[in-house]
Structure formats: C-alpha cells, structure tokens
C-alpha cells in the first residue's frame, strides 16, 4: 500500500498489520528545528484523532494525532537522543510510532499522496 496522509500532516505506511506513523516534510519545515519528541508507549490504545505524540521546536509544540484507531506497538527509540532525525529524514528514519489497527476502514478517510500534495499547495 502506498502512503496515506492526514490533514494534520501525518503519513501512515502499512506493512502487513503494522502501520508506521510520521510527520511529512512540509510539517517539519513549518516546525523548524525539532528539539524534542515525546512518543507514545507500547500498549497505549488510541482512537482516531486522539493525541498520540508531541513534537517540539524551539518556539512551538505540536500534537501529533493518531490517524487510525488501534494500539501502539512501539515509539521510535532513536528520537530521544536524536530528535533532529525528524528534520533530516521525516519520511523514513524520523518515524514517530508503529501501531496495529482495529478498523482498516478508517484508511479510506485518509488522503493519498496526490490528494495531500494538492492540499498542501492550497495552503500556500
């Protein structure tokens, strides 16, 4: 499955049962230098839209929301020591957390890459 995106600038990539969640290149650019990330703990249950993580830059702190309902499998352990991974590699090594889904149907609510790119363009 190709990546899906939310209006809050999160991406989701599916590998079997496990979804990996991160924030987009656009989001990290808006934030500026990321100084701290708080990722959820394994076992935490989330509903679609719940606060799942926090990403902090020097001047701002933003919530990262669960794009789907399910259970967190793992928060990215590398982000504690190297929060700048979010800036350097937002689509790959800067992933935030992995989770299992309880309702695959929720994926339909999300945008595909083309739709997300158009959405970002409109934000100007």
């Amino acid at each position, binding site marked *: 499955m190709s990546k899906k995106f939310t209006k809050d600038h999160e991406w989701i990539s599916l590998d079997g049962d496990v979804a990996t969640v991160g924030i987009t290149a656009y989001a990290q650019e808006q934030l500026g230098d990321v*100084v*701290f990330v708080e990722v959820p703990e394994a076992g935490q249950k989330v509903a679609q839209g719940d606060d799942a993580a926090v990403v902090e*830059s*020097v001047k701002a702190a933003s919530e990262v929301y669960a794009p789907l309902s399910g259970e967190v499998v793992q928060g990215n352990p590398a982000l504690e020591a190297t*929060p700048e991974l979010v800036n350097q590699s937002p689509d790959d090594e800067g992933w935030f957390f992995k989770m299992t889904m309880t309702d695959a149907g929720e994926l339909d609510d999300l945008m595909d890459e083309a739709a997300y790119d158009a959405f970002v363009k409109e934000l100007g």
Partner: protein
Amino acid sequence: MSGVKQTFTGNRALVLEEALIFEIGVTSKCGVDLEPVPETPSMLGDCGAKQAVNLPGLSEPEAMRHYVRLSQKNHSIDAGLYPLGSCTMKHNPRLNEKMARLPGFGDIHPLQPQASVQGALQLMDDLAHWLKTLTGMPEVALSPKAGAHGELCGMMAIRAAIEAKGELDSRKRVLVPESAHGTNPATAALLGFKVDGIPANADGRVDLAAFKEKLQENGGTDVAAIMLTNPNTCGLFERDIIEIADALHAVGGYFYCDGANFNAIVGRVRPGDLGVDAMHINLHKTFSTPHGGGGPGSGPTVLSERLAPFAPLPYVEKSDEGYRLVEDANQTDAPSFGRMVAFHGQMGMFVRALSYMMSHGSDGLRQVAEDAVLNANYVLARLQDVMSAPFNGPCMHEALFDDSFLKDTGIDTLDFAKAMIDEGYHPMTMYFPLVVHGAMLIEPTETESKATLDLFIATMRDLVAGAKAGDLDRFKQAPELAPRRRLDETQAARNPVLRWQAECHEAQAAE
C-alpha cells in the same frame, strides 16, 4: 566578526567580556566581614553538614565589577525606548524606590503583632481604595504575586461562585478569544475548565454573532465564564463589550477581564461599568513598578459584588479600632476560596504603586491614558503607509502590524526585529497576538517624548525601505553590534546546559 577590530581581551572599549563567578571566585573568598562564631554546643542533631557548599565567593570590589559589567549588556527603559506591546514599559520613578525602602515599610515582618504595623495595613487599605475607585469595583484581592497569579485568583473566585450555586459539574466551558495571551487558556485548564475559542471578526474584535452562538450551544447553562482582554491584544477596544457582558450574565456566566492593557483607559473608563466580574491589574505595567528583568510583579484582582464574598485570604479590614488583617477562615463569615500565597502579598510593590498613584492623582492618571493612546496612534499614523496594519481605525495604547509589508523581501518579522537592535532599540513584541501573521505589536507608553517617537518612526521607515530595497545583510546578519550575535536556541533546547559544572566547563576553557 567581519569588519570589527579584534582585541586581545575580547573587550570592545566600554563593553567588557565577563566570565562566570565560578571561573573567577573561590569557595574560601568572602566579600562580607563576619564575626567570629560564638562558642556554643552544637544542637544540629544528626543534620549537620560536614563541609561548606562548593560555591565561589568574591571580594566586594570584584563582585561590584562583575555585576556592573553584566549590567552593561542589558537594554533598559532608563537607556531607551522599549516598545513592547502588552508590557507597558513606562518610566519607573525613583521616588517609588525611595518610599519602598523606608524602614517602616521595608524592615517589618509580616507576622509581627498587628498593633505594631498599623501604618503598613493602612497603606494596603489605601492602595485597595485607589484600585477599587479607579476600576469601579467593590472589592479587591491584593495577595496575587503577579499578573498570571491574579488571573488565577479571578478564575478561582468565579469557580468558587459557581460551586456555591451547585453548578460546577455543569458549567465547564470557558470562552477565550483566539487572540488571548497564553496565560488565559493555561489558567482555565489548570482549574479543570474546557477552553473554547471565540473567533475574531474582520475588525480584530470578538465576533459578536459567533460569540452568542457559542454561548447558546447548550442553552448557555454549560458556560462558566469568558476571559477577555480589553483593550484586546490587538490594541483595540472591544466595542460590543457591554452587550457581551449582558449576554453572558443572562445565561449565568461570569466575565473575567485580563487587565494587562489598563493603561489605555485608566482614569477614563471603569471596568466595573463594562460588566466585568473579575479583573487582574498588573502593578508592574499600569502602575510603574519596575520589571526588574522579569519580576517581581504584583497582580491585585478587583472583584464584583457577586464574587466579593469569595475573595482569598488575607485581606485588610478597617474599623474604628484601626486596621486588622483577616488571615484565617475562622475570622470571617465570608466563604473565602482560600489562600493563594504565604503572608500578605507584594508589599514592596504596593508601596511603589501607591507612591506612583499619589504622584499622578486622578488628573494625572487620566492624562497617562490619553498620552499613551496618543503616542500609539501617532506611531500608527506615521507608519501605516509603509507598514501593514491589519485593522482600520484608531488603536488604543498599542499599534499592531503584520508582516505582509515584508512579503517577497525574504525578510521576516524576526529578522526585522534583530535589525532594530543594531539601531539601538529593543524590538517590539513579535509573533503575538497569534491572530495575525508575523505580528509586530508596538506600545510606546506615555513616558516617551515626541522627539523619541519621531526618531523611532524615522528609523522604522528607514528599515522598511532597506527591506524593500533588498538589503538582506542588514537584516539576516543582525544583530552585529550587540554584545552577542544571534544565539543558537536549538542547541540550547536539544542539549540543555542549565548550570555550570567544573568537569564540562573547565574542559571547555582549556580548548
């Protein structure tokens, strides 16, 4: 630093580099002459420490030099304009300092017998009278230690009033404009309320229709309060404020007013006449007590008739026998919501504020508001053709601009502000309020002369011209002339170093 002479010391004539005390002093040095220790048995039990704390001391001349050199690296009101919107950086009169240091005010203990401090209690009562009269409110809580603490006081009183009516479980919503200062939603959340944002209209004020709709969402019975700043954080007077207050009161809600901008209306408008239930006053803004590099502040909070019974302890009562401090719940029938702070409040700031109020008087204070509003409008009028003001019409005591005038220059609000530093100005408030993009909020206050404003305006116009002419270096490299260039805040946040440590810092010095 390009183009600037390098010196052996790193000093630049009168601007001197200064090391940390830990790099200069030693534990055994002492700048205080102490008596020999009287011979007595120790009664420290098992709690005696074996050795002295590892902190350096300096002789008096060394200490004086250290702090004087540090002081030279600070901008200050005494040195120049500080056009910080919402901060009211007015002149801090020295009479206030002299009065606060009178031994009869400075050298008395909060818990010595009340009969021995009647003059102090009288001062608190007099201050209370001035604040109540200026605001048209029947009660005031003097104990909050700062503006944010005063907000907490006002909202606690509201919560107590709601609880007394048995409505605490239902009234959970607090309406707060998007333009509000961050302390407003922080305070509401601290008390367990749910914050609901009110949008602004195209005029920069609360959208009255949207407000009424929000209010009535659940029939109004779930609204605890509104938290409004007036004049608001865009520097504009909320025209519909009386209607807002009436609509709110009609559904049983309470009106908290953030009094940070009282300087615009003091002596001309009384918040009590606008329907306010609680308002904190920043003595360090409107009433000239010094900002001191970040504190101490003082935030007395005026309360309406409905909230007065819940005022926190302690407070001063006047009777034929004199003044008495009501300190404990069993000394009064009033259902006070409790105590917010040890002792009685910021007495040192009370003396300063009263000294200021007595100096200005009712006529002077009215002139303060008028001159503050005049100065801000003068700046607005003479900059609005080259900078972009998002809202039409006169402002109150502060003028708001956004960054659209910098569009396509490659320069943002931050760069513009840093370039002001090289010109000798402290930047205006940046990126607040959040409702406009790249906000620049300018509050000159009434203690600036026309000549100062003219030079400021000319400088700002020159900076704008430079930005539009593409003079990027003037902005991107700024500041170049301050004691330090732009500082790496990312590093400070990623790898916090919050104290000096021998191992790390000595290695650093060796490099």
